[in-house]
């Protein structure tokens, strides 16, 4: 198992950071979060066409760069750091991987190149209004009919569900839970935006009233779904670690410059010890996130437990760093004008997306045979 980034990986990180510093500064984040679409198509186009980021982990045979989860994790870590607003996580970390895990050769060849090039945007719809992320919680039905399956039910917490050109939907068919491809413009697809606490990531609710669907691979896709969710947990951990890192840096910088009682507040042990504790939490979070990404590439048998471990641990760390950052910023930290709340909201939303920490810790216990 690799524990340090390669030169190429560091170069990728620098390139993505430079791009996001330039094209996705916090002023842009603040502008886009107030719009219903929540992203800037021009920036998406550039990051797709010039940097090839949507295809970073898609095999070359399907138009991608053929790198791995470690690289996808680096891109997401940088996006988390910048609070990048765009359909990257849903289209790349969720939908593209779901297709790679479940699809037939022909389906991969048909669907992935447009995702890799950024020309199409997709997303994955798993959870329902019940908020569960396990297969047993899936009630949406896939019914066999003349000319293919039709889907019936309701999906929620769908990332960038308003914008998606197509969906990968988890639904229950006669052979068990499977993954289905549904066109965004199919009859019987009704979507509406959800009001959420995190305006930097747009979510939608999706109603399926007999929408036409095509099963991805085998109609029993439970294993592929489970792998997709493990990979997604590992990747969301990397995104969260990036946000937490940036927030910690901002907060330490603030503690060095904010003067009270004639000295920087960072010289008081009440503050500096808190900062040291946050650094400890953040370094553990980074280690777990990186290790989970490495498992997704190199140790697939370890991935289910480690992905859940990382999801729980990094989510806890991010939220703690966010809450303490507000505290260290004092009254100013509670204002709209300071950027800390943007991270706090992303941390809180990410904590529960894909399953909240205690759910994942229970999965770790089961997967470790405790």
């Amino acid at each position, binding site marked *: 198992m690799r*524990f340090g980034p390669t030169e190429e990986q560091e170069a990728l990180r620098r390139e993505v950071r430079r791009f996001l510093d330039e094209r996705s500064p916090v002023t842009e984040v603040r502008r886009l979060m107030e719009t219903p679409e929540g992203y800037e198509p021009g920036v998406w186009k550039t990051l797709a066409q010039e940097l090839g980021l949507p295809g970073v982990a898609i095999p070359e045979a399907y138009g991608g760069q053929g790198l791995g989860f470690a690289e996808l994790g680096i891109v997401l870590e940088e996006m988390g750091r910048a609070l990048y607003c765009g359909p990257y996580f849903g289209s790349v970390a969720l939908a593209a991987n779901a297709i790679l895990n479940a699809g037939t050769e022909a389906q991969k060849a048909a669907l992935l190149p447009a995702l890799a090039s950024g020309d199409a945007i997709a997303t994955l719809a798993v959870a329902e209004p019940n908020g569960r992320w396990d297969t047993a919680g899936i009630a949406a039905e896939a019914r066999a009919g003349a000319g293919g399956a039709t889907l019936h039910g309701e999906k929620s917490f769908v990332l960038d569900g308003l914008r998606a050109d197509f969906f990968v939907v988890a639904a229950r068919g006669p052979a068990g839970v499977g993954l289905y491809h549904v066109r965004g413009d199919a009859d019987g697809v009704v979507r509406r935006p959800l009001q959420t606490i995190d305006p930097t990531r747009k979510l939608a609710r999706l109603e399926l009233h007999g929408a036409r669907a095509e099963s991805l691979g085998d109609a029993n896709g439970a294993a592929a779904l489970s792998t997709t969710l493990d990979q997604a947990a590992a990747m969301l951990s990397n995104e969260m670690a990036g946000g937490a890192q940036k927030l910690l840096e901002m907060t330490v910088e603030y503690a060095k410059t904010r003067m009270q009682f004639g000295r920087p507040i960072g010289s008081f042990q009440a503050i*500096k010890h808190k900062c040291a504790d946050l650094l400890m939490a953040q*370094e553990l979070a980074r280690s777990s996130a990186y290790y989970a990404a490495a498992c997704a590439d190199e140790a697939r048998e370890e991935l289910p437990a480690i992905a859940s471990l990382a999801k729980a641990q990094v989510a806890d760390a991010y939220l703690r760093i966010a809450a303490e950052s507000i505290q260290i910023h004092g009254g100013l930290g509670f204002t709209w004008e300071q950027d800390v709340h943007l991270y706090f909201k992303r941390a809180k939303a990410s904590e529960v997306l894909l399953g909240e920490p205690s759910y994942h810790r229970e999965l770790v216990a089961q997967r470790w045979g405790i």
Partner: protein
Amino acid sequence: MDAEQVRRDVRAWLEANWNPELSLVEWRAKLADSGWGCPTWPVAWHGRGLPAALGDVVAEEFERIGAVSTPGGGGMSLAAPTILEHGSDELKSRLLRPIITGEATWCQLFSEPGSGSDLAGLTTRAELDPVTDEYVVNGQKLWSTSAHHARFGMLLARTNWDVPKHRGITYFALEMQQPGVVVKPLRQMNGYASFNEVFLNDARVPAANAIGEVGNGWTVALATLAHERRSFDALRAARAPKGHGRALDEQRRETAEIMAPYVWYPQRAGRADLVVERAKATGRNADPVVRQEIVKLLSLARASEWTARRAKAARVLGRPPGPEGSLGKLYASEVARACARVHTLISGTDSLLAGADGPLEGIIAEILLSVPAVSIAGGTDEIQRNIVSERVLGLPKDPTLDADRPFRDVPRNRL
């Protein structure tokens, strides 16, 4: 000099010289003469001037052949590197060889009842007797491992009270076997007595035994403390090779003596390794709260291992050290405390039972009563957080009240 050349040379020398029927001292005299016992030391002082990586090659060959090496303990790991760095040639020629042969063992005389985290605030005094050119030492030291059988102590004493605290300290090599030195075992809250307290009543040390300049002892002490951070490696190195023969048998006895104070150290670290088997054995693994706490603990333990691996990988690649390298001690404290909580959660009321009545024949009780040491020994967590926040995060120092005034005027404990 490449690794294969070194390997051939040490192998040839060991094949010609290693004889388990020699006495331990006879064998180690050969190590001191040949330079193979301390290959990274200078050629002039019992070494071969090899870089650390080639020193590892030599160690591998000793292990492969099963030959006895230099002794474990504070002499080799703390005193010798300090003397090499700061001692006069006269001290080097007098003190180093008996460390290598194991004839002279050493203990640390640093901490005092009135000076724990603030080591530089120590008040043991050393006053020069111009008639004999000896210093007369008075004070009390504690937490001295092996002081009861040590031949020398690494002594920090104040020789000047009219300058700020860091500038009035001198570092001495103190002969322990003298009437002015009284060693008593120091009993800990977990019942063991692994360390000693040392009473110095008109103990005498020749002026020539000062290591480094008079008044410059703080700098010398920092060198020792830097080596102390690596002392766990030294403990590991103290494992005896297998096989029989006079030298090997003698070394086994020596190792047992050196290791005796540390029998409870695994319990001090919390024994995360016992948690899952205990939960299953007691059936507590069915409780969702217990399951959550176990996973929290093991996640913390695993992630701190991964963090150490990241630090090591960066070191191997020659990258500048990141924050991940400075946090190990704080993680160890956090893991240990979490272990104590989870063991209690699993054992329930049985947690109060000890010895033969206690869970795992008293091991759980020993864990619960040993864990409080982790966040204190070798630098408290609070001092560690100061270091991390100042050196890693670059936060400003807390203003100090004692660093710039004569130590005589600094308020201190009344004991």
